C-alpha cells in the first residue's frame, strides 16, 4: 500500500464518527430540545412553570434571618440578582479550604454552618431545593463554565471515568445511553444527552422539584446499581463532569422535564 493510501485510510478512520465518545460542542443539546410542545410551553411561561413556586420560596428564605448568628443570606450577599448572577453556572466549584469541589447544595449548607451557625438542610428538603433553585435561577441564560478551574481537573476526570464505567445488574454505563443512544427511545420515551442545564428542575413524573443528584441516583437504580449517597465524592465528581460536558450551554433553572 502506498504511503498516500495509508494516510488517506488513517484520515478516514479519524473522520469516521466515533462509536463511543463525547458529544462535540456544537452538537450539545439540552433535554429541552427533546420535549414535546406542551412541556416546553410549561417551562417557558413563568406563570405555568411549577418550579417558579420554589424560586419564590427561595427568595423568601434568602431574606430570612436564621441560625444562632441571626443572619440572612442577604446580610452577607445583598441582592441576589447581582451577587448570584452566573454563580450556579460555575458549580460544582473547587473549595480551597476543603481541597475538593463542592456542589451548590453543599455551598449553601457550608454557609449555614460557617456563617449562619444553622443546622444543615437535608438533601431534597423543600428549603434546600428552594434556595438552590433561587440561586441557580439568577444564572438563567448564563453559559456553563464549571470545570474550567485547573484545580477541578482531576475531579472532572474522576467523573468522566464514572460516566464511562458499566455498572449494575444491567451492566450499562451513562455513556451507553447519553453519548451513544440519545435521540433513540427507551421503552418509547426519548433518551436525551443527559445535560445538567436545568437543575433543580420540576419533573412531572416526580410531581416536585428535584436535584441533579436525585436524577443521577434514579439512573443508577434504573440499571440496578447501588446508587451513591447524596453528597458523596462520586456524585459530586459526576455532577462536575456533566457540567463540564455541557460547557457553553445556557442554564435553564428551573427547567421542566417529563
Amino acid at each position, binding site marked *: 500500500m502506498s504511503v498516500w493510501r495509508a494516510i488517506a485510510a488513517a484520515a478516514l478512520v479519524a473522520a469516521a464518527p466515533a*462509536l*463511543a465518545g463525547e458529544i462535540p460542542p456544537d452538537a450539545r443539546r439540552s433535554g429541552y430540545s427533546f420535549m414535546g410542545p406542551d412541556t416546553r410551553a410549561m417551562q417557558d411561561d413563568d406563570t405555568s412553570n411549577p418550579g417558579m413556586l420554589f424560586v419564590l420560596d427561595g427568595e423568601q428564605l434568602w431574606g430570612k434571618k436564621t441560625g444562632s448568628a441571626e443572619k440572612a443570606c442577604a446580610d452577607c450577599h445583598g441582592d441576589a440578582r447581582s451577587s448570584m448572577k452566573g454563580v450556579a453556572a460555575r458549580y460544582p466549584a473547587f473549595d480551597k479550604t476543603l481541597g475538593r469541589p463542592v456542589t451548590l447544595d453543599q455551598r449553601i449548607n457550608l454557609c449555614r454552618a460557617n456563617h449562619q451557625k444553622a443546622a444543615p438542610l437535608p438533601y431534597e428538603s423543600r428549603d434546600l431545593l428552594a434556595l438552590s433553585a433561587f440561586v441557580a435561577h439568577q444564572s438563567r441564560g448564563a453559559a456553563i463554565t464549571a470545570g474550567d478551574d485547573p484545580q477541578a481537573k482531576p475531579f472532572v476526570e474522576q467523573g468522566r471515568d464514572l460516566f464511562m*464505567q*458499566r*455498572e*449494575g*445488574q*444491567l*451492566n*450499562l454505563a451513562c455513556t*451507553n445511553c447519553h453519548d*451513544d*443512544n440519545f435521540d*433513540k*427511545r*427507551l*421503552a*418509547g*420515551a426519548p*433518551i436525551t444527552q443527559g445535560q445538567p442545564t436545568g437543575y433543580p428542575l420540576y419533573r412531572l413524573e416526580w410531581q416536585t422539584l428535584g436535584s441533579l443528584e436525585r436524577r443521577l441516583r434514579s439512573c443508577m*437504580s434504573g440499571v*440496578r*446499581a*447501588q*446508587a451513591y449517597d447524596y453528597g458523596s465524592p462520586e456524585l459530586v465528581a459526576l455532577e462536575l463532569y456533566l457540567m463540564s460536558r455541557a460547557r457553553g450551554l445556557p442554564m435553564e433553572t428551573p427547567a421542566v422535564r417529563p
Partner: protein
Amino acid sequence: MPTKADELAPYKVVGDGIPQSLTGSPGDVTRGRALVLARTTTCILCHSGPFPETRFQGDLAPDLTGAGNRWTTSQLRLRLVDASRFNAETIMPSYYRADGLARVGRNFAGKPILSAAEIEDIVAFLATLRD
C-alpha cells in the same frame, strides 16, 4: 457482595450456541411472550417487535420480528445467557450471569436477571417469531 454464581445451572457452549435446554425441558411459548413484554424483564426497553398491544417499545436494538428465522434455538439461548459472546461491546445485558458486574444493587446482587426457566420460555417464544 458474595456472588452466588455457583447456583446457576451449568451449561455448555458449543460453537456459537448452547444446544441443551438450561432446565432440561422445553420452555412455554405463551409465558415467554408475556415475559418479553414485561417491563421488569427489560427486553422492550431496547427492542421492538410484533407487539401491537403496546406503544412502549424501544429502538436501541433490532426489531425482534423474524428472530426465529435469523437464529437457531441454540444461538438464541446463548444470546440471552451472554450476549457479549456475539459482540464484546454490546449493550444487551447478559441475562444469566451473576458475577463480573460492578456495584450491583443490594436487591439484585448475586442473582441472574432471569431464571433458567424464564430463559427457556423466552427462547421458545423467540423461536416462533418467523416472518
